[in-house]
Each structure stands twice: as structure tokens, then as C-alpha cells.
């Protein structure tokens, strides 16, 4: 069973991302949307927690917040809304860490 973990809160304001990361298994993907996309910005403290994980971020939310793809940590996939849907389909279930 694989899970898509969706996080939408800033890691600097809420601990949702860190809780989610503790629950991630090898076959899982973490999708960062809304304010959670700040976690994938290089140089931030939260970025350290994401190493070794399969991370996707929603492109529209990155752009809204002025985070260029060149500012992301390595190994992060940027997806559009269709890619979001593909991820949901690809995994057996979805867990939203609101």
C-alpha cells in the first residue's frame, strides 16, 4: 500500500510537515501545496527534513509565492494540477495533513 501525503501548512508555523515526514514509507510520495511549498526552498531550515524523500510541489503555489524552480532543493518534482491528479491516481490512498 502506497500513500500520497499532502501537506498544505507552512513548516515554520505548524508541525504538520514534520509529523507527515515521520509517517512516510519508502513507496510514498509527499506533495507540498499552498504554504507548505516554502519547505522546499533551498537554504531554509525545513528543507533539511526532506532529504531522501520523494517530494513533489505544486507549481502554481510556488509561482504565487515567488519561489523560482532554481531556488528549490535538489530532487524535488514540480507538478501542475493535472500532475496532482496523476499522483492521487498513482497511489493507493491519500492522507492530508491539514
Amino acid at each position, binding site marked *: 500500500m502506497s500513500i500520497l501525503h499532502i501537506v*498544505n501548512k507552512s513548516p515554520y508555523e505548524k508541525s504538520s510537515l514534520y509529523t507527515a515526514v515521520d509517517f512516510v514509507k519508502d513507496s510514498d510520495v509527499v506533495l507540498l501545496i499552498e504554504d507548505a511549498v516554502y519547505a522546499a526552498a533551498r537554504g*531554509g531550515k525545513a528543507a533539511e527534513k526532506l532529504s531522501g524523500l520523494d517530494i513533489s510541489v505544486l507549481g*502554481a503555489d510556488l*509561482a504565487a*509565492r515567488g*519561489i523560482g524552480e532554481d531556488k528549490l532543493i535538489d530532487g524535488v518534482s514540480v507538478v501542475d494540477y493535472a500532475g496532482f491528479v496523476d499522483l492521487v491516481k498513482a497511489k493507493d490512498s491519500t492522507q492530508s495533513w491539514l
Partner: protein
Amino acid sequence: MSDVKKLMYVNRRAPYGTIYAWESLEVVLIGAAFDQDVSLAFLDDGVYQLTKGQNTEDTGMKNFSATYAALGDYEVTKIYVEKDSLDERGLLLDDLQHLVWEDEDEDWAEKDSIRLVSRAELADLMADQDIMFNF
């Protein structure tokens, strides 16, 4: 004048994820009509409000980041950004918009609005306010 109060708007939330940032900006613009001694403080996720290059086109939300550049026109000239908050998020002053105000008395000379402050300096500024609005 003794009836001029020192007002500080304290911004601690990222834009777009919640409505706080835009609400704060609207209150600041409306409140600017009352000729008080106004300052804005940005700390924690609030520093994200001022980042350059925001493009909300694909989210269907209003991009209000352009409006911060109008604060100078509204005579809001004191914008304090807390440095530890930038550091923690991997941001530099250069990642923020260059906000200025124009001094009418000096032939519209452009002056920087943003002042980088430490947590201790911001605490001192807060202690000096008559009223603080928190967003």
C-alpha cells in the same frame, strides 16, 4: 502633537494561504488616512509577504504583492523586517522587494522603507508603541 499615536501592524502570516496578509494591508491603507505614526513589522512567515517575483496567475488569486510598493504613497515609510525570520527561511534582504518612499520635501528623493532589525530591536520598538494590530 499629543493626539498622534504610534501604531504598529505586526504581520506574522504568509500571503495567500490565509487571508490575514491581505486584510492587514487593506487596514493599513484605510488607516493611513488618519495621520498617525504608523509602522509595519514583518516577522515569522510574515516576511514571505514581501518576497519578489510573486505570480498568482495559475492560482486564480489576486496578486497583492504589487500593492506593498504603494505604501510609500500612503506615507507608510517604516517597514521593519526581523532578521532571524529571514535567516531561518533561507532568505536574504535581496529576496525582498526594494520598497521606497519619496520625500516630497527633498525633491522626491527616494528613501528605503525597509529596515532590517534584530528580534531585540523589534522588541524595543514594540515596547514603544501605543497600539499594535496583529495579523
